[in-house]
């Protein structure tokens, strides 16, 4: 009876999800309520988790709860710490959820709400979640080894080296593009700039408190920090109203670029306890609070989605970024659906803390589903504003025109009516000088979030506070990724440099720290600078480059996962990882080819460079702009080269893997798995925490 009831309930959830998806897909005309998106996403996630992840866990991976995990075998209270599954879920989610699932869907909204929403749901269920789950499982079975180490052992030496190089290269582009998002969000905004600048002294204060006053008391320090941050968000209004301070905190794009580069260098070179770690604590609490509030706000306000399901820009002529719906929708929405970077977390801290193998399904697959839901909420927030406003915020002046009248006329001519006063009033309402040409996704998402929040609490009076809270929230955790990434990049540079000159590889050697920090900051700083001076807004070239890199890393992770499944003798279920791998390789190779060779100057890097070179040759460029134009040509060729290098690295790894697969399938090579030997767990099958509590104290909660 219970089983029948359960089946009926799951059937009802599946039908409800299918109905909501159908409504989203076929609805035309009147605006659609956001609740349809929430229902469709939640039902699909529930069904995917209940059925598909259970299938992967039971049939494909055959998770074994009798096997001791690395956390049990190597428990040292430092890296290897057996952790309650809910706590670890929180850790894992906080680690994987960055700005990507917020910014990507917001940018992809230029195609309309439909393609992005469908990809967020399907891409996560069949691609991103599977990748995170399988890589987590593989790492658990290998004592928590990293993706690079697994690639080296299971695919080939060269494969491992390529994976490590790919991580470094993609990290450089990632840091540049997220820094660009911050620059575009803070440009000419004294309120937002002041708020974010104040988070640095607040973090320093917390750092000193946590180091010397109350070591390790993160919770109380974070509560103090969050209170101070809320205060500076409100105080930012006084700064914006003061003619003197407003002038001090009004920075241009290049000014902000310099400030962020100096900040990145400092965060990398200073002791980690002083700036980086306390900022991370603040960011984690504010991130959790803001995401929860956005979900609650959408459920309470139930906004109408004003963006059409498909816009005219599916043909590749979009103002936010160039490129057709295929492949660029799948490149732009990176982290909300499939993110290669997650494989670094799934093969990093999480496998060392997991209590038993069975938890990998909930943590690996479940956390990614939640991240995808964040992406759907970002899509709703972006699509809940008038399409004309969305395009005005996200389009560069070179496309819509430099003045408000010209911009409004251009956007209206696309079929999305917009009055210049609408933007003026909106900017005034959110406490900004202007909202025109703020490409990058962050300001438009902040407007969407502020509208939802102010409809929940405070009404129009609090719109400006909510807007700057949203900007601060986005910028704060983007900078957290930036400083943590710069530091990790510094270690990678030191490791590579240490192969050439040993002292450089020593982590505590100050000249090495300073030099390696300068190298990694110079690498991403250059791409950031290039994005800031790009007449097309920078996001047009850098975000697709980041998307390509991230998806290529996902392809690397899935190639490793497929090789391991093959070696485990799971040929029958190989499609679980092989199909997303093939899809990602097709998407990324197509996008790479188009970004390099497409004849349209807006899309193809080389076509754009050649067009500018021809203009110089024809004498159409003024002497004053000659240096800038030549630099632009160099940058475009550099972007083409970086894209080609990404694509080549992955092609080499794929060829290596195919050779491996062929050798194994044709029995020319023995399938040697590099798993840790089986050791039975000390904890009973029906473990509920009690056995572990007895063994190591009462730290664990119930299972």
């Amino acid at each position, binding site marked *: 009876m219970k089983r029948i009831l359960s089946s009926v309930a799951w059937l009802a959830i599946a039908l409800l999800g299918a109905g909501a998806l159908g409504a989203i897909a076929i609805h035309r005309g009147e605006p659609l309520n956001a609740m349809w998106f929430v229902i469709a996403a939640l039902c699909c996630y529930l069904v995917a988790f209940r059925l598909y992840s259970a299938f992967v866990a039971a049939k494909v991976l055959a998770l074994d709860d009798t096997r001791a995990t690395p956390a049990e075998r190597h*428990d*040292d*209270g*430092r*890296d290897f*710490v057996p*952790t*309650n599954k809910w*706590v670890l879920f*929180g850790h894992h989610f*906080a*680690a*994987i*959820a*960055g*700005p*990507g699932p917020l910014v990507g869907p917001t940018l992809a909204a230029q195609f309309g709400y439909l393609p992005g929403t469908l990809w967020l749901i399907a891409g996560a269920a069949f691609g991103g979640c599977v990748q995170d789950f399988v890589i987590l499982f593989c790492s658990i079975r290998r004592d928590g080894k*990293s993706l690079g180490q697994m690639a080296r052992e299971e695919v080939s030496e060269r494969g491992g080296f390529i994976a490590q190089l790919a*991580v470094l290269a993609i990290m450089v582009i*990632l840091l540049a593009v*997220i820094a660009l998002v911050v620059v575009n969000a803070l440009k000419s905004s004294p309120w937002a700039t002041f708020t974010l600048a104040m988070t640095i002294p607040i973090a320093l204060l917390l750092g000193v408190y946590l*180091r*010397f006053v109350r*070591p*390790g008391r*993160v*919770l109380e320090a*974070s509560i103090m920090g969050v209170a101070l941050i809320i205060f500076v968000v409100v105080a930012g209004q006084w700064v914006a109203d003061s003619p003197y301070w407003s002038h001090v905190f009004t920075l241009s794009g290049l000014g902000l670029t310099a400030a962020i580069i100096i900040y990145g260098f400092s965060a990398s070179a200073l*002791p*980690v*306890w002083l700036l980086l*770690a306390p900022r*991370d*604590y603040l960011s*984690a609490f504010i991130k959790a609070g803001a995401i929860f509030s956005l979900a609650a706000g959408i459920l309470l306000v139930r906004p109408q989605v004003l963006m059409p399901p498909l816009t005219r820009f599916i043909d590749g002529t979009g103002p936010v970024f160039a490129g057709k719906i295929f492949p660029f929708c799948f490149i732009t929405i*990176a*982290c909300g659906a499939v*993110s290669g*970077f*997650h494989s*670094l*977390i799934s093969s*990093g*801290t999480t496998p060392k803390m997991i209590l038993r193998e069975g938890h990998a399904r909930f943590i690996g697959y479940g956390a990614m589903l939640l991240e995808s839901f964040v992406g759907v909420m970002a899509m709703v927030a972006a699509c809940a504003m008038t399409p004309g406003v969305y395009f005005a915020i996200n389009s560069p002046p070179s496309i819509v025109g430099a003045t408000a009248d010209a911009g409004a006329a251009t956007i209206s001519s696309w079929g999305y009516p917009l009055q210049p006063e609408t933007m003026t009033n909106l900017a005034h309402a959110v406490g900004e000088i202007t909202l025109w040409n703020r490409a990058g996704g962050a300001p438009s998402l902040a407007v969407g979030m502020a509208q939802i929040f102010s409809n929940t609490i405070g009404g129009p009076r609090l719109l400006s506070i909510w807007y700057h809270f949203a900007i601060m929230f986005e910028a704060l955790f983007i900078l*957290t*990724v930036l400083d*943590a*990434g710069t*530091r*990790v990049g510094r*270690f990678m540079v030191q490791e590579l440099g240490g192969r050439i000159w040993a002292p450089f590889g020593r*982590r505590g050697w100050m000249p090495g720290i300073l030099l390696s920090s300068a190298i990694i900051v110079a690498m991403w700083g250059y791409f950031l600078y290039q994005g800031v001076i790009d007449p097309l807004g920078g996001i047009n070239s850098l975000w697709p480059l*980041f998307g390509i890199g*991230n998806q290529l890393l996902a392809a690397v992770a899935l190639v490793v996962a497929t090789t391991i499944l093959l070696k485990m003798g799971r040929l029958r279920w190989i499609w679980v990882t092989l199909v997303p791998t093939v899809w990602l390789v097709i998407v990324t190779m197509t996008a790479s080819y188009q970004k390099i060779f497409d004849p349209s100057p807006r899309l193809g890097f080389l076509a754009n460079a050649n067009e500018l070179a021809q203009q110089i040759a024809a004498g159409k460029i003024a002497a004053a702009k000659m240096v800038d134009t030549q630099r632009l040509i160099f940058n475009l060729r550099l972007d083409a080269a970086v894209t080609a290098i990404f694509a080549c690295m992955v092609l080499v790894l794929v060829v290596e893997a195919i050779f491996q697969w062929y050798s194994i399938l044709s029995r020319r090579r023995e399938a040697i798995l590099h798993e840790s030997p089986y050791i039975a767990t000390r904890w009973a099958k029906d473990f509920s925490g009690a056995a572990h509590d007895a*063994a*190591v*104290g009462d*730290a664990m*909660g*119930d299972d």
Partner: protein
Amino acid sequence: MRKVAKRTRRFLLRFWRGLREWCGDAAYESYLRSKAVHGASCRTLNEAEFYVEQLNRRYSRPNRCC
């Protein structure tokens, strides 16, 4: 009623314990417990040393994603 109060209290206690573990407040306690059980030979770090050492390890590998 008493049963409900007991359950609520248990839930809140668990939530509090989970929150402390999630944010890192309980890390030193876990370390000491692990030390006591496994009896590793190296010197036991004090709270401030453990805090700095733990941060240096945590932020030397990718721990925040895009």
